[in-house]
C-alpha cells in the first residue's frame, strides 16, 4: 500500500487507451465498473479531441457481481462490434475487473467475431500507464504484423515510424518534423503507428526495411520483437536536441545505406548560434533540475549541458523501466539520479538543490510555481497547454529551436538582469518591478517563498484557495534578522533577494547562528559562491 497524493502515470489500461485512441479502425472493449469512463475526458478535454475515444466500458455494478458479469462483457463486445464495425478489437480489464477474473480474452474469442481480437493482460496492481501503452502496442504488432516482403533491388529505402500516441507530449508535431527529415534523406515512410494507423496498416509494418523508434517508452518492446522476428533493425537515438538530431540522421543513414552529408551540412537549427551569441552568456552554469519520463530526461540533460551550457544539478525519472538509462546519463553530470514516482520527493530535492531552472512535467510546473523557480515542460504527464495550436515539435532541428525558446524565455534576459541591477536605486525605478517579459503578475516572486500558491486554472477547480506551507520550502519565520542586515538584504536585486534570504537562513541554521547580521549575510554569500 502506497500513500499517493498525486500520480505521474495513470493505470496501464489508460496506456492502452492512448494507443487505441491514436489509431483508426481499432476498438477497445474494457471490462470496467462505472466511473472508469473518467479517462475519456483526458482525451476530449486535455487534447481537445473531437471524437470520443474508441472504448466501450462494460460498466458493471455491485449487483452484477453475484450474477453474470461475463455475460455483460459479451453483450458489450458484441454491441461494440455491431455499432463500430472495427477492423480489429483489443479487449481487457481495468483494475477492478482484473480482480473478478472474467477472462475478457476468452469471452471475446467465444463470440467468434469476424475480426482479429487481441487480448491484453495489463496487471493494474504492478504496472503503470507507459508500460500499458508499450505492452498494448507490442501485442498489436505481434498479433497483426504479416509476412516480411522481399526487397526489390533499386527500390528506395523505407521505414516505419513507431511510437506516437494520443496524449503524448508533442507527438503530433514531432511526427511531422521527423517525417520531413526522413523524406529529405530519400527514405519512404510506410507505416506510422500507432498514430493514424489502422490495424490493416499495422499488418504491413513488416514490409519496411527498418523502424524508427521515436518514443522508446512506447515502441521499444515492439521494435525489439520486430528486429528478432522480421529482421528489421531499429533506431536507438531519440532525436531531441541538435546533437541528438545529428546523431539520429547519421544512424538512420547508416541503417538505410544513404548519404546524409548534404542534410547534415544544411543543418538549419538556430540553437547553436543563439547559444553562442553573447546574450546567452548569462546562461552559463545556471542550475537545472530535470525530471520526466526516461527518454525525454536523458535527451534534456544532454541539451542542457552540451548545448546551452547549464549545470545539471539534479535529474530523475518516474519511469522505472528507464532507471538504468537515466542513472547512466546522470553519471556524466556527476550526480545521482532520482528514481521515484513520489512528487513530494521531487519537490524536496528541487528545494534542496537551489535550482534556477526546472525542466519537468506538469507536476514540476506546480512545484516550480510554489518555489518561484522558472520552469519549462519537457515530458508527459501533459496538460491542455501542452497541445499548443501552433506547430511546436521537440524533435529535429525545429524542435531544437522550440526548446531554446521555451527553456530560455522563463529566465531573466541577460542584459535586462544587469540593467535592473544598475538602475535599482534610481527614483524613477520601482524596486520590485518584474522583468518585462514576465508580465504584471510576476512581482510576487520578489519575496521569499513561504506559501503554496494555488493555481485555480483547471476548469474544474472550485472556489476558495487553500494556502499551505510547501513541506520542503525553507521558512524564514523562525529567524531574527538585525535591522542592518534586513536593510542590506534590500540592496540585493529583488529577483535574487528571495534566494539570498533562503541561502543565508540555511547557512545560519547549519552553523547554529541565532541572529543574522550583515556579517552572516556576506559569510553566506561567500559560502554559496561558485
Amino acid at each position, binding site marked *: *500500500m*502506497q*500513500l*499517493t*497524493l498525486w*500520480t505521474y502515470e*495513470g*493505470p496501464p*489500461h*489508460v496506456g492502452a487507451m492512448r494507443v487505441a485512441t491514436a489509431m483508426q479502425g481499432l476498438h477497445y472493449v474494457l471490462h470496467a*465498473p*462505472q*466511473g472508469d*469512463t*473518467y*479517462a*475519456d*475526458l*483526458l482525451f*476530449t*478535454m486535455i487534447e481537445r*479531441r*473531437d471524437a*470520443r475515444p474508441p472504448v*466501450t*466500458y462494460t*460498466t*458493471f*455494478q*455491485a449487483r*452484477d457481481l453475484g450474477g453474470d458479469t461475463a455475460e455483460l462483457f459479451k453483450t*458489450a463486445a458484441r454491441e461494440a462490434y455491431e455499432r463500430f464495425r472495427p477492423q480489429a478489437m483489443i479487449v481487457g480489464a481495468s*483494475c*477492478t475487473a482484473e*480482480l*473478478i477474473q472474467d477472462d475478457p480474452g476468452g469471452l471475446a474469442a467465444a463470440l467468434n467475431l469476424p475480426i482479429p481480437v487481441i487480448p491484453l493482460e495489463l*496487471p493494474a*496492481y504492478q504496472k*503503470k500507464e507507459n508500460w500499458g501503452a508499450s505492452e498494448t502496442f507490442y501485442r498489436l504488432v505481434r498479433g497483426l504484423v504479416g509476412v516480411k516482403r522481399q526487397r526489390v533491388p533499386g527500390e528506395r529505402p523505407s521505414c516505419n515510424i513507431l511510437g506516437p500516441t494520443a496524449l503524448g507530449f508533442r507527438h503530433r508535431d514531432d511526427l511531422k518534423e521527423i517525417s520531413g527529415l526522413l523524406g529529405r534523406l530519400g527514405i519512404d515512410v510506410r507505416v506510422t503507428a500507432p498514430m493514424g494507423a489502422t490495424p490493416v496498416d499495422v499488418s504491413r509494418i513488416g514490409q519496411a526495411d527498418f523502424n524508427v523508434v521515436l518514443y522508446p517508452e512506447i515502441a521499444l518492446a515492439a521494435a525489439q520483437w520486430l528486429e528478432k522476428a522480421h529482421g528489421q533493425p531499429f533506431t536507438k537515438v531519440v532525436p531531441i536536441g541538435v546533437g541528438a538530431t545529428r546523431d539520429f540522421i547519421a544512424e538512420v543513414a547508416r541503417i538505410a545505406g544513404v548519404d546524409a552529408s548534404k542534410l547534415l551540412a544544411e543543418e538549419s537549427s538556430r540553437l547553436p548560434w543563439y547559444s553562442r551569441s553573447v546574450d546567452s552568456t548569462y546562461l552559463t552554469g545556471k542550475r537545472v533540475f530535470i525530471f520526466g519520463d526516461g527518454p525525454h530526461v536523458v535527451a534534456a540533460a544532454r541539451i542542457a549541458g552540451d548545448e546551452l551550457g547549464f549545470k545539471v544539478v539534479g535529474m530523475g525519472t518516474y519511469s522505472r523501466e528507464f532507471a538504468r538509462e537515466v542513472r547512466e546519463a546522470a553519471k556524466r553530470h556527476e550526480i545521482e539520479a532520482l528514481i521515484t514516482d513520489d512528487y513530494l520527493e521531487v519537490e524536496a530535492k528541487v528545494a534542496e538543490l537551489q535550482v534556477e531552472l526546472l525542466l519537468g512535467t*506538469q*507536476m514540476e510546473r*506546480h512545484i516550480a510555481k510554489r518555489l518561484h523557480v522558472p520552469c519549462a515542460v519537457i515530458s508527459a504527464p501533459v*496538460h491542455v497547454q501542452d497541445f499548443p495550436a501552433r506547430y511546436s515539435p521537440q524533435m529535429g532541428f525545429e524542435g531544437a529551436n522550440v526548446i531554446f525558446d521555451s527553456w530560455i524565455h522563463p529566465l531573466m534576459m541577460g542584459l535586462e538582469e544587469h540593467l535592473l541591477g544598475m538602475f535599482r536605486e534610481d527614483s524613477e525605478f520601482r524596486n520590485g518591478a518584474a522583468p518585462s517579459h514576465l508580465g504584471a503578475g510576476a512581482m510576487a516572486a520578489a519575496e521569499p517563498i513561504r*506559501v503554496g*500558491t*494555488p*493555481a*485555480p*486554472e*483547471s*476548469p*474544474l*477547480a*472550485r*472556489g*476558495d484557495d*487553500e*494556502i*499551505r506551507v510547501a*513541506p520542503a520550502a525553507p521558512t524564514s519565520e523562525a529567524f531574527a534578522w538585525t535591522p542592518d542586515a534586513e536593510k542590506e538584504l534590500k540592496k540585493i536585486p529583488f529577483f535574487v533577494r528571495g534566494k539570498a534570504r533562503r541561502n543565508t537562513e540555511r547557512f545560519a541554521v547549519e552553523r547554529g547562528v541565532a541572529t543574522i547580521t550583515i556579517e552572516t549575510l556576506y559569510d553566506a554569500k561567500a559560502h554559496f559562491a561558485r
Partner: protein
Amino acid sequence: MNAIVPLSSTNSVGCSTAPVLKERGQREVFCGLTGIVWLHRKIQDAFFLVVGSRTCAHLIQSAAGVMIFAEPRFATAILDERDLAGIADIDDELDRVVGRLLDRRPDIKLLFLVGSCPSEVIKIDLKRAAARQSRLYAPRVRILSYSGSGIETTFTQGEDACLAALVPTLPRETADAKPCLLVVGALADVVEDQVARLFDALGIAPLRFLPMRHATDLPPVGPQTRYLLAQPFLADTARGLEERGAKRIDAPFPLGAEGTTAWLRAAAEAFDVPASRFEAVTAPGRARAEKALSAYRERLAGKRVFLFPDSQLEIPLARFLSRELAMHVLEAGTPYLHRQHLAAELALLPATVRLSEGQHVDNQLDRCRADRPDIVVCGLGLANPLEAEGITTKWSIELLFTPIQGYDQAGDLAELFARPLVRRARLEV
C-alpha cells in the same frame, strides 16, 4: 405521491406519473469518489483517504484538475500486489499509511477512509479499520468510513454516502430541545450564508447545516429535528436521519426563483411562519432573481435542451429551465430517480419531458442526435465530441462546482446555459 406543494396555480400532475425509460449499458458518469473534490473544500479540517487503485488516484486527480493545491486534503492508499496476495496484512498497512498521514497533517480532525471498487471487491472492512483507528487517535482525530466505489455509487452519491456515514455520529439533541431546522447537502459557503440570513429573518431557529464546515461542529439530531434537503441525491443520508427521529420537510429544490421560494416556503410552513412575514422576507430576493432571470429568458425561451444523466440535479434543472426560462426540455436523464424526494419536482415538470433513468450512452447519443437540441447538458467526456458535431453543450460538472442555489444565484444558473449559445452565435470562424 405527496406533491402538496402550495406554490403553483396549476394543479397538473406534471411528470408524476410519466413513464420512465430505464436503460442499462455504458454509463458516461463519474463514480462517487469524485464527491471528494467538493467535500474536502466544504469540511475544512477533514481529510479523505481513498483505499483503492492507481485508477482511483488518477480519477480524482483528473477530476480535480492537476495539482490545484500544494498539498490537498485527499490522497489515495494505492493497493499493490502484496496487498492483494495477502503477503502484506491490510490492517497493518492501513495503520501505517494513516499514521504517516496524521503525523504529517496535525491539523486534521476528521479522517474518512473511502472505499473504492477494488477495496469493495476484495472486501476490505474499512468500517472496522476506522473504528480501530478511532480508538487509537481519539480524541484528536475521528475516523469514519464510507464507500465511493463506482460499483455502488454514481458521482453525487459519494456525498450521500459520506453524509450518511456522519449521521450516526451526530450528537443526540437534548431532552428539552426545541424544534430545529437542519439543512442537508453541501452548499457553497456563500449560498449557505445567504440561506442562513433568510431563515434568520423568517425567525426559524436554531438552524444547522450538514455537512458542517468544521469537523467538531456536529449538528445534534433527534425527534425535534426537521430537515430540509438542499440536494436531490441524499437518499441514504435521509434514511439515516429518519432513523434518528428527524422528519423531512417535503419541498422542491432551491434552484431558480420558483424553486427557492417553494423550498423556503416549505420550511416556513413547517415552522408556522406567518404568510405575511414570509412575503416580506422573500420579496426582495424574488424581485432580484426575477430581474436577473428576465434578461436570460429572452435569449433562452423556446430553446430545446437535452440533459444527459450526471449529478441527479437533472430533474430540478429541467423544471427550472422549462418553467422559469421557458425552454423546451426534450429529455431529462438521471442516473437514479428518487421518486419520493423528487415528488414535488416531478409534479412541476411539463408532461412532455422524456424521462430516462440509468444510461446506455450510445443509444442515448442516438436519441440526442435525432432530437437536434439547441443545447446539451453533459459530462466532459461527451462535450467536445458533440461540439465537433455542431451541437452546443454545457458541462454538467460546473453545476456542482459553482454556486447555483438560491435567489441570488438564479441569474448565474441561467447564465451557465446562455453563455455557450451566445458564444456559438458570436464566433465567425
